[in-house]
């Protein structure tokens, strides 16, 4: 952000505005959403980046997979094989049904790759793509968020998908009657008086699983993004903070930014792995009877 000159300095956003602007999505309403839930609005940026990243990731995997050989594998194939074996190994340990694994294991792999790529968008400088978009769209106030998993919809979209899949397998393994029966008879026991508490518990369980699944990913990525924004703010603050200003804070930006980015590499992979593991665990649980 250029903050030289009085006019620019006057027009420059203050810290709060800067962060809020960065947390606003490019959506169909044209301004940041101000109601908690509004299903008439859709976030173009989250959708665009997640679809592009998913498509690129899967395309690369597909290109490697279609030339897969059972002989000596190339490096790309070997890398893909490591991923496939890692997911397959976990899936075999967690999901008891081999038939289900045909879909659940690829689902886990997709979740891992996709979440990893979406999280990795955090490594781009926080202002890079928003600035490019502002120039490209000609609107200096255009909103853009580049980390789809730092958008509540992005993370919950995934965990909601996992909920649907686990409900599907729940019904598939136990039958619709068996599943309904479980819904009202577990966890407290099969007694007419306990039907309502059981059902309430089940609903709480499903909700808790889904919310914690999505929230874990969202929270980590949102906090990571926020910290990158604060680090960027520290660098920008230097010209206006005379006593400690100048190169010192710029240096602080460099040091903390580097450290946080390095640590974030770990978080990005870890969160992708955790998301994949929980996907497998929740769907695996759907196969077991209470």
């Amino acid at each position: 952000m250029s903050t030289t000159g009085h006019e620019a300095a006057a027009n420059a956003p203050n810290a709060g505005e800067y962060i809020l602007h960065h947390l606003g999505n490019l959506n169909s309403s044209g301004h940041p959403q101000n109601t908690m839930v509004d299903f008439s609005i859709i976030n173009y940026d989250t959708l665009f980046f997640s679809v592009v990243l998913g498509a690129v990731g899967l395309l690369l995997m597909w290109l490697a997979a279609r030339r897969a050989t059972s002989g000596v594998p190339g490096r790309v194939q070997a890398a893909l094989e490591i991923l496939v074996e890692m997911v397959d190994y976990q899936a075999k340990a967690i999901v008891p049904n081999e038939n289900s694994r045909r879909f659940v294991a690829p689902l886990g792999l997709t979740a891992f790759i996709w979440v990893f790529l979406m999280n990795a968008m955090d490594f781009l400088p926080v202002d890079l793509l928003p600035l490019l978009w502002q120039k490209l769209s000609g609107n200096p106030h255009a909103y853009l968020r580049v980390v789809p998993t730092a958008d509540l919809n992005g993370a919950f979209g995934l965990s909601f998908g996992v909920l649907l899949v686990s409900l599907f397998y729940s019904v598939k393994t136990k039958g619709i009657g068996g599943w309904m029966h479980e819904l009202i008879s577990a966890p407290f026991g099969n007694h007419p008086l306990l039907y309502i508490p059981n059902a309430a518990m089940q609903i709480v369980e499903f909700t808790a699983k889904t919310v914690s699944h999505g929230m874990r990913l969202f929270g980590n990525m949102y906090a990571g993004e926020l910290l990158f924004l604060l680090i960027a703010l520290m660098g920008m603050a230097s010209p206006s903070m005379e006593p400690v200003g100048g190169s010192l804070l710029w240096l602080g930006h460099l040091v903390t930014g580097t450290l946080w980015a390095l640590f974030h590499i770990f978080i990005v992979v870890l969160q992708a792995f955790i998301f994949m593991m929980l996907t497998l665990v929740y769907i695996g649980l759907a196969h077991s009877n209470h």
Partner: protein
Amino acid sequence: MYLNATLLAQTTVFIILALFTMKFVWPPIAKALDERAARISEGLAEAERGRQSLALSSRQAAETVRGGKEKASEVLAQAEKRAEQIIEKAKADARLEAEKVMAAAKAEIEREEARMRELLRGRVAELAVAGAERILRREVDAGAHADMLSAIELDL
């Protein structure tokens, strides 16, 4: 920070991506991995078979060598026996031949002896006649006493 329709879109995209992975990414890799595992286990089994056949053939080779050695020593023993037999036979033959030669020599000697005796017999008769001649000089007529003289000769 707020929920909207993006959630459902994201869910749909997620399911579509997973289906794509299930259809196009996972199977070729899983197939390649399974095939490679099969090939490796096949190779290992083949190596094991090779190891076994090597052990078998080296055992066979050792057996053949041992058999050859046994046969060789057998042949050697036979040859020695045969040589001994040949020597024995030669000895026997030689003995036989010597006896033959000795017998022939003995016969020859006997023949010579007989001849000598014949010769001596003649000479003795002559000597007797000559002696008698000397003794009887006048009284004995060779012609008249020829019968008597030949009788004496026969008596000798």
